[in-house]
């Protein structure tokens, strides 16, 4: 693997649309559930233990075998009851697919079916990581970390939180991201039904409420 290649893939400045999504934080702020740094900390911990674990697992599985993308995509559909979150995930998948296929060869996503469906973001992330010559653990760590950076920076924009403090939360969760990535890589070949499925009810509820707003800063 190339560490620099992983940094390119995980960089928030990769033009793949990630900046448009708050990972559910905008809805949590609006509902009054996140008001300050301590709430953001709890939000990030819960998001990492649920969406982060699922995203990392599916990214690792797709990186291990990109030909499984259809089954993995269906597995994420079954794990994402919220239509708004399915839509957001496919939008981010489409944006990353566009960027990733320009940067690296990603044969699994060249198929017309993949182009038409626009697989969920974790599946695209894994397939692109494979194309970039990365290994499942790399894909998983980029995925787990990527579920945190959106809401952490959104907290700064939405609540005016101290940006150093918000990034300190990310630094504090680095060990947890590493452990999640280890586990995701170890289970990358598991059948789809047995892969992690940790749900976060308030992320689902918040996403559905958020999708009805006429004016919002973030797409999800």
């Amino acid at each position, binding site marked *: 693997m190339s560490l620099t290649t992983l940094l390119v893939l995980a960089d928030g400045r990769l033009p793949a649309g990630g900046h448009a999504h708050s990972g559910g934080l905008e809805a949590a702020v609006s509902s009054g559930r996140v008001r300050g740094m301590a709430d953001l900390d709890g939000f990030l911990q819960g998001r990492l*233990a*649920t969406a982060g674990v699922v995203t990392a697992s599916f990214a690792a599985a797709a990186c291990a075998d990109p030909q499984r993308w259809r089954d993995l995509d269906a597995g994420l559909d079954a794990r994402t*009851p919220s239509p708004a979150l399915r839509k957001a995930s496919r939008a981010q998948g489409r944006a990353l697919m566009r960027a990733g296929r320009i940067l690296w060869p990603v044969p699994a996503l060249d198929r017309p079916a993949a182009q038409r469906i626009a697989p969920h973001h974790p599946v695209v992330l894994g397939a692109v990581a494979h194309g970039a010559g990365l290994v499942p653990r790399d894909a998983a760590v980029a995925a787990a970390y990527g579920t945190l950076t959106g809401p952490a920076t959104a907290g700064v924009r939405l609540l005016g939180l101290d940006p150093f403090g918000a990034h300190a939360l990310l630094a504090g969760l680095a060990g947890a991201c590493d452990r999640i990535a280890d586990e995701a890589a170890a289970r990358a070949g598991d059948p789809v039904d047995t892969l992690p499925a940790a749900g976060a009810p308030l992320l689902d509820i918040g996403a559905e409420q958020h999708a009805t707003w006429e004016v919002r800063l973030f797409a999800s």
Partner: protein
Amino acid sequence: MRATARVVAEANGRGGTRLTVLRGESPLLLRRTGPDGGAGLTVHLVGGAAGPLRGDDLSLRIEVDPAARLDIRSVAASLALPGPPGRPASRLRIEARVAAGATLRWLPEPLIAAAGCDHRAVTVVEAEAGATVVWRDDLVCGRHGEPCGQVRTDVLVRYAGATLYRHELAVGADAPGWSGPAVLGSSGTGGAYGSVLLAGPPVTATAAPAGPAASPAHGTAVIMDLAGPGRLATAVGADIRAVRAALDPLCERLGEPPEPQRDQAMATA
């Protein structure tokens, strides 16, 4: 304590349902309740002992044959308790098979995660195309004023040969952020979560509209169209009353045989 229970329902050939197997052992005891002669039958789980406690290993198998209709309820909430120290987590595994044209409604009372409990619930539902499934699960995070014990739930629902819904939820000290604003909210102790899954043709034809549901006092709820043939209503509240206020009305309506008046009631609800 190890216990298994099994219930098998089949059509009786006269538009009704009969039970061909109804077998259980303490603490998983099943009792046939309700009137004869209707299209469907009701079976209640009656607690035969305290628990589940650590070390318990319980298994329930439900089979609903073509055109049969079965409701399963419970007479009281189940209370997951610590039990003897050093024992493994208590386990409850529920497997259900629902045939084409059959209806299964699982509508139990809540599970309460008492302080110090360690409980794991695994649910596997396999429904054929044309089956109707209503699957309700409510969870209360601790009794009044006590910290929540550890509960992990793991649900797999397959419909017409494909996975329709797969969901895990972990609460308690080992689950990071579970009582935070991404998962169940800061109302940790005494907070409640409930969901009702509706799978099958009547659901898409007659269910309440999807979208944010009328949020009950001290809670929030939503009805979501799944990617496959089904819907999920989810509610989170400061207590179980908020969850019930959101989900009970849905459960009363869904999975009933289609009737014009009922459809009208749902359309205007």
